[in-house]
């Protein structure tokens, strides 16, 4: 049922508080509610932090409990946590949310146009396939073709959003 556990070396994401949005590694457990935490590569000083503001990630580092910051840093850099984190969907979603909030009026217009164009293309292809299907009767080949044609259009749209 539970896949991520609080353990020494677990990398956690801080969701609120002064260090919101940063990654830390759990160095030691203080009591039921707090952990000793350190984020040498993310700008968080070694400190006690309540579990409530931490959200566990999939990454675990290897270092003994109460290891000093240098060891934590070595382990962090060996595992390349910063890059791995940026590649996760979680981090990408956060980034997308930030970008959306920063969108200016002009950007919103550009996104609207891109979305409109994309939907038009999709609809166009769908209609084409529907017409073919209705003409030639039910055949198993047609629904497969429609899935393949949607994927390249989705890639186009995400590229446009990233540009803006």
């Amino acid at each position, binding site marked *: 049922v539970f896949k991520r556990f609080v353990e020494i070396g677990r990398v956690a994401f801080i969701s609120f508080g002064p260090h919101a949005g940063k990654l830390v590694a759990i160095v030691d457990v203080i009591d039921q509610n707090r952990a000793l935490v350190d984020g040498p590569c993310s700008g968080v000083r070694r400190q006690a932090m309540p579990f409530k503001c931490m959200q566990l990630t999939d990454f675990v580092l290897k270092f003994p409990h109460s290891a000093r910051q240098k060891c934590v840093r070595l382990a962090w850099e060996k595992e390349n946590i910063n890059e791995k984190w940026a590649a996760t969907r979680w981090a990408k979603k956060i980034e997308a949310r930030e970008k959306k*909030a*920063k*969108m200016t*009026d*002009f950007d919103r*217009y*550009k996104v609207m*146009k891109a979305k409109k164009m994309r939907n038009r293309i999709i609809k166009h292809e769908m209609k084409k396939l529907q017409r073919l299907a209705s003409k030639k009767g039910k055949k198993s080949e047609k629904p497969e073709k429609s899935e393949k044609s949607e994927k390249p259009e989705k890639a186009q749209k995400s590229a446009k959003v990233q540009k803006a």
Partner: protein
Amino acid sequence: AGEKKPGEKAPREKKRGKKKTGEKKPAEQKPSQRAVGEKKKKIKKHHASRNPVLARGIGRYSRSAMYVRKALYKRKYTAPETKIEKKKKEKPRATIIKPVGGDKNGGSRVVKIRKMPRYYPTEDVPRKLLSHGKKPFSQHKRRLRASITPGTVLILLTGRHRGKRVVFLKQLGTGLLLVTGPLVINRVPLRRAHQKFVIATSTKVDISGVKIPKHLTDAYFKKKRLRKPKHQEGEIFDTEKEKYEITEQRKSDQKAVDSQILARIKKVPQLRGYLRSTFCLSNGVYPHKLVF
């Protein structure tokens, strides 16, 4: 020569303080001559008040004592007026001679130019208290939001062009903003807009080289109202302009400005379409959360 100068400057300054022009040492003839020339060009330093203050508004010396202390007997710049000069002074004309028409009326009358008042109020109007800093509108300080710079795209919020996105040109003398569609893009002509009823977006068009004609001022844009109701009632409503007519000058000015701006708009991709579109809110869109 350079070494001499700092040495010479010190005695020169002392001389200035005492205001002695008579003393001339032979060795320092040239610098003192220079000093006199310099005095004429430089403004004389004003002496501090020669009347020490006893309490606020009360000086130690009387007027006559101050006259002596300030040596005003020496400081007379105009010669006193002689009687001949006084007589020669021309007074402004007090009366004028006007002709009278008709028969047996004596031909002309002497009429006073400045006449006695025709009414004296029973109670004198009380003196108004002094007020401070109350300026008329023409002298008010005009402010402009930092987010509005020439070339900014603004969203108009009121008026017949509400919701339209428009290019800002400059701020006029009364503080209103001069703005243009451009006309071919969204049918907004050269127009004035109020700063308060406008959203400034962060999108800017580069208007650095654009020359805006100087005759586009508030007077140019002000609404014209006819004022001459010699004929009373009935015809008043006809004379007032019902239909606004676009003058040829407006068209030419619009063309002159827009041609310059359109060229720059075309350089930015999708900007033309952006200016053509209108701003609107929909579900889930909250203005306080939007970044413009």
